[in-house]
């Protein structure tokens, strides 16, 4: 599969065609959020209140960046472990979230929601945080500044490299990888 370039927001049409193992260069807006911000967003949803970010077609990047050195857009910004957001993700996927970027396995509930509502999960290379930061062209806090690194940031990215780990068919790249290389 050759690498492809995608720009957010993502449509069902685009998402449906993605398959596990597909390398993607993402462009456009990403929103950052980790457990604390997800908890706040779900609390807003429970109260019937408006979220601080749009969800329809959007992609959330699970990251808590380190502070930016003077003159830079952002500090180091690699993915955090996605599993911590699993309790919250299905709610957002049901409301139109089309993509999530992180690292590590997702739960069966999240995979089911991705199949049902057409969303994908991308992995970025954990720990390649200085390298990944180079693809981030702008960064501003849009909600929960009191959370420091865990605030919701709006990022604009250019050719941000990711790989599809879960697609709309329910396949999982982590499972497939182990099957090929275990016990040799």
């Amino acid at each position: 599969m050759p690498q492809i370039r995608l720009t957010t927001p993502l449509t069902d049409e685009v998402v449906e065609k993605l398959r596990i193992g597909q390398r993607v260069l993402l462009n456009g807006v990403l929103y950052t959020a980790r457990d604390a911000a997800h908890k706040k967003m779900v609390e807003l949803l429970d109260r019937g209140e408006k979220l601080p970010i749009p969800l329809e077609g959007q992609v959330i990047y699970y990251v808590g960046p380190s502070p930016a050195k003077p003159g830079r857009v952002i500090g180091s910004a690699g993915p955090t472990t996605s599993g911590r957001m699993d309790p919250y993700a299905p709610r957002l996927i049901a409301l139109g979230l089309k993509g999530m970027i992180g690292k590590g396995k997702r739960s069966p509930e999240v995979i089911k929601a991705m199949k049902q509502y057409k969303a994908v999960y991308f992995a970025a290379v954990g720990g390649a945080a200085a390298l990944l930061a180079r693809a981030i062209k702008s960064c501003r806090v849009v909600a929960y500044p009191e959370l420091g690194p865990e605030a919701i940031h709006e990022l604009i990215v250019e050719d941000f490299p990711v790989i599809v780990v879960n697609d709309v068919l329910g396949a999982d790249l982590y499972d497939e990888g182990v099957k090929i290389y275990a016990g040799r």
Partner: protein
Amino acid sequence: MRFIDAATITATVAELCQKANYELGEDVLRAFNEALDQEISLTGKDVLQQLLENARIAREEQVPMCQDTGFAVVFLEIGQEVMITGGDLYEAVNEGVRRGYRDGYLRKSIVDHPLRRKNTGDNTPAVIHTRIVPGDKLRIVVAPKGGGSENMSGLRMLKPAEGVEGVKNFVIEQVRAAGPNPCPPVVVGVGIGGTFEKAALLAKEALLRPLGQSHPDAEVAALEKELLEAINNLGIGPQGLGGRITALAVHVEVYPCHIASLPVAVNINCHASRHKEAVL
């Protein structure tokens, strides 16, 4: 009697916090290059190359290799002839962490209370482990520990009857269940023996050993080798995307233990295995 000033300790800790986050260890670099040779998965090789490139950028630009600049875990080995002057030792260490993380643009990742969870804003307090040793030196090791790898760690109080097979099964299963989460290829620290808390500390201390250095006891070294092979047979690979290099090293530390117990602790570290030291 030798006097060491608190201000010197603060400055040293601050510098070590930054160096540990910006500069990958020489032993780890070597291990990455060996892994690149040995890995057969193309995706795995690609990941390793990105990590090497990342390490180069971090060192050149003096920026953190990873955004999770970790909990400041500090080991102090104080010679019993040393006297600390000019301030409280632990406050000096915490001030060093505060300054290192502030001036080094490192992430503030500590919350004040596990349940209330308000960010302390300065990455303190540190977790400090202190040992008093003969001599007149103060050895300081700063080992920033990320949350992702730490979260995949575990401890079990085995029955002595479970023996070495029980130990092996627990360690391998811990790494298998962690899968991609701790950013493989991992470094695995194992503590066997002691008490509940001693086993955990042994496992963390095991992570400080240079990669490629086996335990001086032949039997323990053989166990390390067996565990490394078994773990690499899991096929998890770099970033869990499939491959033959799931761990860069397994280090085991042992300690005497109770006739009724066989504690085993597994402290997983990510591939960066960050730690830097200085001797005052």
